């Protein structure tokens, strides 16, 4: 369960959002409406002026990023210097040897049939690796910021992430303009001028 009630102002921009939900949650809206800012507040990149952010039963509002168990993803959140296998295993406790089956299963589910350094992959290939890395780490919440747009034949990937969110994995909030992904969401919220409408 995600329970967010935050107020945040920077310069001219003001955000006031309230969201209580779980599962595979979509967030859409025009550019500059505050979608990424809201994800940044939940991830801990920004700190709200007031309010609270509760994930599961934990109040994470003022926790440092690495203690939130909330993974933030966008097309640039990747480690360019490691190969695909090491990237996927990065957030797994205990290292990749003990979790080889899970890694192979994730690769199969996301269509990761390639190897090599992540920096030389295409945007779509990289997006699949980024998603796999987050899901293998099994955080409480995954925040996905415009990552599905780069993936060809994204429906199967979106479906897999939805199954993961609904099947006892992490809750997922994703920002997207893709109608296909939004249709798959359990709930879709629209943001306008820093408000959820």
């Amino acid at each position: 369960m995600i329970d967010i009630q935050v107020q945040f102002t920077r310069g001219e921009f003001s955000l006031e959002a309230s969201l209580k939900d779980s599962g595979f949650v979509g967030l859409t809206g025009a550019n500059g409406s505050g979608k990424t800012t809201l994800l940044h507040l939940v991830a801990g990149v920004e700190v709200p002026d007031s309010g609270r952010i509760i994930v599961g039963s934990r109040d994470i509002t003022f926790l440092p990023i690495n203690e939130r168990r909330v993974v933030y993803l966008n097309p640039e959140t990747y480690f360019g210097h490691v190969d695909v296998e090491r990237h996927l295993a990065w957030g797994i406790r205990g290292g990749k040897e003990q979790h080889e089956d899970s890694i192979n299963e994730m690769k199969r589910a996301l269509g990761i049939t390639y190897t090599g350094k992540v920096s030389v992959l295409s945007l779509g290939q990289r997006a699949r690796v980024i998603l796999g890395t987050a899901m293998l780490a099994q955080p409480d919440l995954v925040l996905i910021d415009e990552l599905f747009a780069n993936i060809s034949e994204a429906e199967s990937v979106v479906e897999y992430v939805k199954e993961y969110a609904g099947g006892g994995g992490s809750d997922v909030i994703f920002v997207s303009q893709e109608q296909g992904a939004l249709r798959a969401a359990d709930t879709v919220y629209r943001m306008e001028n820093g408000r959820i409408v």
Partner: protein
Amino acid sequence: MVQRRKRQPDSLSIISGISVFLLSIPVIIILIYGFIVFRSAQGFSHTVLLSISLTLASSATAAAIVFAVFTPLAYELARRRNSLLETASDIPASIPHPIIGIALLILDSPITPTGRFLNYIGINFFDTFQGLVAALVIVSAPVYIRAAQSLFSSRRVEPELLASSLGASRLKVLYTVVVADSLRGVMSASLTAMSRAMSEFGSIAIVAYYVLQAPFSGVEPASVLIYEYYGYYGPQVAVTVSALMILISMAVIIAMRIVSRAKRKYSSGRVVR
């Protein structure tokens, strides 16, 4: 076949060329006089080679320590600007370097509490290899910190955000993501620090005029030896040793350029054109 258009020199490139020439005049003069005009046999003696070896060993040790100790500070300054920390880390570079030597002597003097403590645990700076390295660490650290800070600032922050959100502490992010992905840049910054250490005179002339420990027992660092030869024998020998030292410094600078060019070309495993 695509032919590259040759760039025509403009006024800026002509001024730049003249500036580089002006900077190079002392180096060219020393090389000509050291290797062609004077060419003193004493300039290639065993004493000189030992002295250069001491300079290389102490400077490389200082650069390694600077890397190990000051990389976290460089990262902190790159990600969280702090003018107090920045100013404090610049101070050793902006004061006359004999002051560093005097400060180390006071720190290590048996008449001060710090000195008594250091002597008690077996650390002695006066005329020792560790004193020489301590001085070189202090004078070269600001150079390294600035170079590494600039390198880290130019990196995108998203990989660090991913690592943090996957549970990594800031220290783990630094070493497993930032340093691991910027190894060539960090090596280049370390070579810059080594290069700076090799050129030091002011502080080491006070704290370690000679080193009285094996395998460098009685050996002076190259900059001190050049100064001493100049006083004893006049310019002939000093200029030949200086020319030799310039060649070695140039080798370090060339290594640094090769490393940093490779860094630009293969940044993050991607060929940057």
